[in-house]
């Protein structure tokens, strides 16, 4: 079977910048931060008191029945609402005529951690028989994709991807391969995360991974800046509808972008630290470009992983230099995490969407709070202001605790 071309035909998202792609893109191109004080729990005893929280009213279009919402963890709610937007955007009818040709692959780093914490509180304080029966379905990560299949009648391949901060990118990459290899015609894919919880913030704080710039939340996420002091956690979801060229053409779908490359590697190095030499991330990008059949100079925009941690930003800069050589100073790079914070398992998915939007709109989003670049980070990170630029190809990077690396290449459709 000849390889299928794979197109993005629908997108949907929720972040601290708002509900929906339009609200997000407006904020991203305006260079607006969505970071603020944590309201989901009392932070009095916590070193970090800020995050990129999703606003309470995140389903303005009513994509999900409120009664169904009650039976979901927040990470599942984000996925279902974003998928509602993406499916409406794609104009796909459901349930599909050929349900076994339609699948779901959605990533999440920690799934229903909030429900696990709540359940553990009950089992310890009230006793085991008071644990709510839905604790389990809210906790586990495969129920995000399962709920999407139940909602849309997609009976094809279905699984969750658990890859920490690379989960979203890995999910999109695996779904892309599935369509390309002819194993499915349509895939709902992306990532979702809701871990602004007590245990998660406490644990990240113990690793000294989070920014503690509590008095200046909007200035806390500052990738590649000399004064960065860790990442800022965010929450939300990004969902993409991927479709084979044949299927999309047959129904006259609008093509938002084409996915043409995916590369995946691992550092094989350390449980939390990236290998400082950037070798495996370089290979992820290189393999993605080889998959796309293009040379590095074809890339007009890199959506960097850019976490705003000392180790990542230096390492990623080095990996880009390894791949692009002298041309690395000419490619536009940015870290949209400067505005959204780091959405962990949803990051790769929302950044895939921003990359698609950059190509479609001819706008490279900025890296905000880049005031004094780290001397080791000397590339064009599109500081503080969006730039108009025709982009033919964009690459989106994601790297994880555990060393999992993924790169996705998108082309203008």
């Amino acid at each position: 079977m000849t390889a299928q071309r794979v197109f993005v035909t629908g997108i949907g998202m929720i972040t601290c910048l708002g509900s929906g792609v339009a609200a997000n893109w407006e904020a991203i191109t305006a260079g607006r931060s969505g970071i603020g004080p944590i309201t989901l729990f009392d932070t009095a005893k916590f070193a970090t008191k800020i995050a990129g929280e999703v606003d309470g009213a995140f389903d303005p279009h009513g994509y999900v029945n409120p009664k169904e919402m009650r039976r979901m963890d927040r990470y599942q709610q984000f996925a279902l609402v974003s998928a509602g937007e993406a499916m409406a955007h794609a104009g796909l009818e459901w349930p599909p005529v050929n349900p076994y040709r339609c699948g779901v692959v959605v990533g999440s780093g920690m799934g229903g951690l909030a429900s696990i914490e709540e359940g553990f509180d009950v089992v310890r304080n009230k006793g085991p028989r008071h644990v709510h029966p839905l604790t389990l379905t809210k906790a586990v990560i495969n129920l995000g994709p399962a709920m999407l299949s139940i909602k849309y009648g997609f009976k094809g391949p279905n699984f969750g991807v658990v890859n920490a901060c690379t989960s979203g990118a890995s999910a999109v990459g695996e779904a892309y391969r599935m369509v390309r290899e002819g194993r499915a015609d349509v895939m709902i894919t992306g990532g979702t995360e809701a871990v602004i919880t007590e245990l998660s913030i406490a644990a990240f704080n113990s690793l000294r991974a989070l920014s503690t710039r509590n008095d200046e939340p909007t200035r806390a996420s500052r990738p590649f800046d000399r004064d960065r002091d860790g990442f800022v956690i965010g929450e939300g979801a990004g969902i993409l509808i991927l479709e084979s060229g044949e299927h999309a053409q047959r129904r006259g779908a609008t093509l938002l972008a084409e996915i043409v490359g995916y590369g995946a590697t691992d550092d094989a190095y350390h449980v939390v630290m990236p290998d400082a030499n950037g070798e495996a991330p370089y290979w992820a990008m290189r393999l993605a470009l080889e998959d796309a059949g293009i040379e590095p100079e074809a890339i007009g925009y890199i959506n960097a992983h850019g976490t705003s941690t000392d180790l990542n930003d230096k390492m990623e800069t080095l990996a880009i230099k390894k791949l692009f050589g002298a041309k690395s100073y000419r490619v536009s790079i940015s870290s949209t995490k400067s505005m959204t914070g780091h959405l962990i398992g949803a990051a790769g998915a929302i950044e895939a969407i921003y990359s698609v939007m950059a190509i479609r709109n001819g706008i490279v989003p900025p890296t905000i709070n880049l005031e004094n670049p780290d001397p080791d980070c000397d590339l064009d990170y599109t500081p503080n202001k969006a730039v108009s630029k025709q982009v033919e190809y964009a690459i989106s990077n994601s790297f994880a605790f555990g060393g999992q690396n993924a790169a996705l290449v998108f082309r203008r459709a």
Partner: protein
Amino acid sequence: MDEVEKRVIDLIAEVLVDVNKENIQLDSKIVEDLGAESLDIYDMIALLEDEFHLEITDEEVEKIQTVKDVADFIRVAKQAS
């Protein structure tokens, strides 16, 4: 309808995704008429136990059929406690 009955209907309506509150009568059979399946029943038990501070054993659940049965059970259990 008394307060307990009203509250029981509220909670059952909260659990059953496809059932409107207006369609729940005191003599509605929870499984046959309202379409509750086992997970719905466990969900209801958890909500009722929390709301009325009581325990409903699986044996007691077997004897409950209608919405009124639930309210009667709660009234008896509250009096006993």
